[in-house]
């Protein structure tokens, strides 16, 4: 009896102000989709950061005859300089591991890495990539100290930090994430206000019923429950629409971006499912809570 009665009341409430309900559902859907997209981007950034930071190396390129750096004076690096540099690198506290890579090895690695771009491989000859020390850092953020220490040493042509290249990409993702969350926050405010208005209208439409309920001694929860569930159901429907939007944003935004920058590990279905669950729950709770707050003002018990 109770359940059927409450469901009936909710249905009447939602149908009576259908336009309000629709606008509420749309607002919640957009808010939750943006919120979820923000979460997805954050997850992608975290995942990729972990993956890439693990592999990131600082390369110290040594002088070759073709180097344009005046530090090299058009001289090939000497064995003595090489020994000194290696010893110095190994002494630096930030350095975890030092590997020497000669021209042949560098060329082989280059060919392997860019095997897909035949033109690039064809125009590059062995010897174009100079000898280098490839350095793994204990903390990838501390590359600056290494850079400063090594750049001025005799025999060093250039110090390249791979992190710099990735940083740009992460910055773009970070910006997108911020934008998505900012718009989501604005939409959340709109959703809360809309819930407030919807519930207020609903309470006004049903003032006869609630008046009688009060009079015959219905409990407060019993009087409030239809209104709160009304909000929660609108939130749920909005959340379901949002999950569809989230699947799209995963496929068209995140996966595309990830594909462009060769992010090896894109997010899996489990991540998406988690984000969708969180978004739907957030939408439902948000609406239910907003209803509850409004009721306290417009439904005298």
């Amino acid at each position, binding site marked *: 009896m109770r359940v059927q009665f409450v469901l009936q009341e909710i249905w009447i409430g939602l149908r009576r102000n259908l336009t309000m309900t629709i606008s509420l559902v749309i607002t919640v859907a957009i808010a939750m989709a943006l919120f979820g997209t923000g979460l997805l981007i954050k997850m992608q950034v975290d995942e990729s950061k972990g993956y890439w930071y693990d592999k990131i190396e600082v390369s110290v390129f040594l002088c070759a005859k073709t180097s344009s750096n005046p530090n090299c004076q058009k001289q090939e690096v000497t064995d003595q300089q090489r020994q000194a540099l290696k010893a110095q690198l190994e002494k630096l506290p930030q350095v975890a591991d030092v590997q020497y890579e000669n021209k042949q090895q560098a060329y082989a690695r280059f060919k392997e890495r860019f095997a897909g771009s035949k033109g690039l491989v064809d125009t590059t000859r062995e010897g174009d990539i100079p000898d280098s020390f490839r350095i793994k850092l204990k903390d990838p953020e501390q590359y600056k100290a290494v850079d400063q220490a090594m750049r001025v040493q005799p025999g060093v042509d250039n110090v390249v930090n791979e992190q710099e290249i990735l940083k740009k990409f992460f910055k773009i993702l970070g910006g997108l994430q911020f934008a998505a969350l900012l718009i989501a926050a604005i939409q959340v405010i709109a959703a809360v206000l809309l819930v407030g208005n919807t519930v207020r209208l609903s309470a006004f439409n049903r003032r006869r019923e609630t008046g009688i309920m*009060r009079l*015959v*001694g*219905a409990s407060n929860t*019993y009087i409030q429950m239809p209104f709160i569930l009304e909000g929660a159901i609108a939130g749920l429907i909005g959340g379901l629409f949002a999950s569809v939007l989230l699947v799209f944003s995963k496929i068209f935004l995140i996966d595309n971006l990830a594909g462009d920058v060769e992010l090896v590990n894109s997010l899996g279905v489990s991540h998406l499912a988690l984000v969708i669950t969180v978004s739907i729950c957030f939408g439902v709770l948000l609406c239910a809570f907003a209803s509850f707050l409004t009721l306290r003002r417009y439904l005298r018990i």
Partner: protein
Amino acid sequence: MIHFDNVTKVYANQQRPALQHVNVAIEKGEFLFLVGPSGSGKSTFLRLILKEERPSQGHVHVAGKDLSRLSNWKVPHLRRRIGCVFQDFRLLPNKNVFENVAFALEVIGKPRRFIGKVVPEVIDLVGLEGKAHRMPDELSGGEQQRVAIARAFVNRPMILLADEPTGNIDPATSIGIMKVLDRINRTGTTVVMATHDAAIVDAFRKRVVELEDGRVVRDQSRGVYGQAY
């Protein structure tokens, strides 16, 4: 059953008190007319019994309980034991007679089988046999008030409060309504009826409490409406 113990009620933003030092004791099973001109405090009296308002001074006891000590979440349980009837009936226009009466039981969570048994009995008691499936706008004023009384009584309250129940009804029909209230009173329910229908008060010869400017100016068993009589 109902005790007003030196009750004064002053509404916010109003100088003149709605009730002043009211002392009234109503016993179980009594039938009491509350009379007096508009604004004399009759409605405030009834609202205090329901704890819709709380007294500025003094105490109201209902069924042995001091209402000022009754916590808010227990108020619904108090109201389940008090039935209410109003001048304007307050029926739900989109529900038929049966559904209107059943509503009072549904919202306090009574099981369907119980409702199906009790509601027809009460509809018969108030004299609406065979009209259970009529909508309120298909009924006369008197019949609508009978529905309202059925709804107030369906949960077998200890107390029935009626605020000018015959105010919108012609005198001939009012007698019928009064007979229903009298029948309810005979089941042991305490009835408090606010009215300024002199003919009815005079005809029924029950206890009369007269209010004037918030004061009890008369409390008479088997009384009449005006002192001039």
